[in-house]
């Protein structure tokens, strides 16, 4: 599997299907696992890391149930390719930027990714389109069992799965739902929603924004604790809070449609117009405008666009994707011009580019 191929295709979680997909972009579960016979990563030297990586690769490649996984040697990739994998949510920034032997195994649909030598020896991740936490859990639980059949995990009878950081110990599980909340942002209700989400932990994070800035009105709902509750209980907690957030966003959308239709239509149409006609545009502005267009499509205000197309534009207008698609390195100014050209091509008024489908 080449990375150029990846840049030009579409991960399955972007297809915009699955329950509640007008608001929920994706459901993701990750498990942190460590082998019992190696120190945690921070105490591994280069030789340990190399041995660890090859042991894991060997065992997983030998497992028939996991045979559709392809390993990518992250240590050998250049900066652009590593960034591409980050933009696609297949690897973390931490894995992209760390040192020593490390890799990621990915299935062809990009539903499953398995990072080796991140903060923990293994970080298993499953992403589903829309709100499908049970589906994600079923799959990752099975993958976890398969991996464990060839390796011995560090496990403590009282503390559960042992992780490098004690904030992950126990289940080692992080459940995250990526929600698109443009109407709550426009109606300035977003903070109130956070307050009412007191029961569980709402981690505020943008889709690609650095730190806590929520770019494109994407927020992530996820569990903070990993110990003392079972996997199913943690999933239920995140599900519960997600349902509330969805309800609030729907109410805010209804309010905009019923009470502020002209304002809303104006916002959406301006965003669409800018994306179609800008001559240069930053990644941040693109996300902001795409967010409004995405809401417009969901509310039936824009007829000739589909959600999967918009979802893909969020990814393909990211810096590394743009450069991969153009097969040249571009500086920020050049990227802003190319991004505008790309958006112009993709959002042509009459016909859809076949590349989009």
């Amino acid at each position, binding site marked *: 599997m080449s990375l150029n191929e990846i840049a030009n295709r579409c991960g399955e979680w972007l297809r915009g299907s699955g329950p509640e997909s007008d608001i929920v972009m994706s459901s993701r579960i990750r498990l942190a696992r460590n*082998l019992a016979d*190696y*120190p945690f990563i921070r105490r591994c030297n280069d*030789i340990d890391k190399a041995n660890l990586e090859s042991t894991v690769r060997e065992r997983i490649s030998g497992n028939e149930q996991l045979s559709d996984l392809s390993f990518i040697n992250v240590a050998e990739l250049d900066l652009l390719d590593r960034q591409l994998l980050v933009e696609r949510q297949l690897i973390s920034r931490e894995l992209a930027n760390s040192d020593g032997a490390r890799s990621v195994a990915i299935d062809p649909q990009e539903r499953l990714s398995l990072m080796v030598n991140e903060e923990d020896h293994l970080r298993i991740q499953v992403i589903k389109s829309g709100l499908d936490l049970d589906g994600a859990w079923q799959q990752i639980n099975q993958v976890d069992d398969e991996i464990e059949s060839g390796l011995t995990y560090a496990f403590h009878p*009282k503390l*559960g799965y042992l992780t490098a950081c*004690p904030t992950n110990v126990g289940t080692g599980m992080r459940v995250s739902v990526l929600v698109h909340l443009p109407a709550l942002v426009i109606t300035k209700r977003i903070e109130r929603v956070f307050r009412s989400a007191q029961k569980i932990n709402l*981690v*505020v994070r943008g889709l690609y924004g650095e*730190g806590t800035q929520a770019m494109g009105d994407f927020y992530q709902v996820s569990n903070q604790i990993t110990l003392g509750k079972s996997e199913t209980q943690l999933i239920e907690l995140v599900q519960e809070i997600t349902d509330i957030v969805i309800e609030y966003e729907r109410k805010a959308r209804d309010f905009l449609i019923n009470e502020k239709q002209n304002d809303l239509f104006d916002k959406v149409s301006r965003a669409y117009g800018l994306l179609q006609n800008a001559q240069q545009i930053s990644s941040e502005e693109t996300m902001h405008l795409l967010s409004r267009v995405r809401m417009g499509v969901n509310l039936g205000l824009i007829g000739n666009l589909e959600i999967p197309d918009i979802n893909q534009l969020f990814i393909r207008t990211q810096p590394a994707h743009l450069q991969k698609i153009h097969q040249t390195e571009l500086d920020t100014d050049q990227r802003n011009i190319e991004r505008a050209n790309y958006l112009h091509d993709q959002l042509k008024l009459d016909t859809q580019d076949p590349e989009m489908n």
Partner: protein
Amino acid sequence: MKCTKCSKQAIFHITDLTGDELLALHLCHDCAKEYLHNEEGDDESGQMSSVISQQLSPLQQTTEEVRELDARECPICGISYYEFRQGGRFGCPHDYVCFEQDLEQLLENVHGATVHVGKQPLRGVRDTESQTELIRLRREMKEAIENEDYERASSLRDKIRSVETEGQKR
């Protein structure tokens, strides 16, 4: 869970991974707003490190006790409690056993619990002592090589092999 800056209910749970230091923040609405608002500021980082060290060194302990605890090392990977506090990451699975008592309060603060109730490994909870032993033997072998004590290194290598074959038989 309480806010780490005041005593109100924590709503925002932020794990900040900038730099080497791990910041696990549990903040109420007001403190979170302030934190997120000030995030850009450089002088924040100093303030935040004190939040994590508060988490990691219970206030009821005297300086003397803290110093003693900081100096303690894991016999398997050699990491000290001080190093753990600094980086927020452990050195090997055995640290959870070695620092178990001191960890309890931290786990209670972070998770509101100290006992795992979820999934267990498919093959049951196995005795991983020999595996932990491998971590120590490999470390000692590395040290022996660094000290050019090749005789000891080769005897350690044999030991590692025998533990490994023992493990495969099971």
